[in-house]
């Protein structure tokens, strides 16, 4: 089994990066690999509860997050520094994520077989 690390570093709207990475995560999950889905930098905005992009005529990317568990993706991490730098806290998040530091993320990257960043 390979360890695949996905770094979500972009906000949920304004580009298709968040959705593209999510699709990669869900596709990788079909192959039953060890998946680490890490939200950092602007990526932490993807986790915010209460997103409603209807006025943007965009699909709500965050709607899929509660399904991660059904796809067997249970290692979801959140960079606490990124969250706090944006004035956010963990009680504003849609799904539970394990908080971690940049140092923890460095280690996860170092121990991964493949790393994807969007």
């Amino acid at each position, binding site marked *: 089994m390979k360890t695949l690390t996905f770094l979500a*570093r972009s906000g949920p709207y304004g580009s298709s990066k968040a959705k593209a990475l999510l699709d990669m995560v869900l596709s990788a999950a079909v192959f039953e690999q060890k998946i680490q889905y890490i939200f950092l*930098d602007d990526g932490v905005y993807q986790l915010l509860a209460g997103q409603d992009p209807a006025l943007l005529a965009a699909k709500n990317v965050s709607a899929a997050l509660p399904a991660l568990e059904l796809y067997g993706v249970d290692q979801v991490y959140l960079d606490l520094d990124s969250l706090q730098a944006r004035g956010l806290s963990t009680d504003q998040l849609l799904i539970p994520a394990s908080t971690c530091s*940049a140092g923890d993320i460095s280690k996860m*990257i*170092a*121990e*991964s077989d*493949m*790393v994807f*960043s969007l």
Partner: protein
Amino acid sequence: MSTLHIVNKSPFRTDALQRCLALVSPGDSILLIEDGVLAANLSTLADSLAGRDVNCYALSEDLVARSVSVADTCIWTVDAAGFVTLVCEHRNSLSHG
């Protein structure tokens, strides 16, 4: 296992380099390409690399095109073939855009 961190944005326009430096582990390498090479002549980059066991490279084609020189002997220049070699020498490549 080592990772090649690739930065292609100007340090004056985005924080890509800072976000890269936050995730670099000892034994990793950083490669500056495109506008990322604008960091190559900053002493602050040399300072933040000091004592971290991280090799830093800048792509010579992008340096020459922009007439940027490297500030410190701690930054190596590589050409496109060297870029390929670096990718092969590391287990993963990670772009910080």
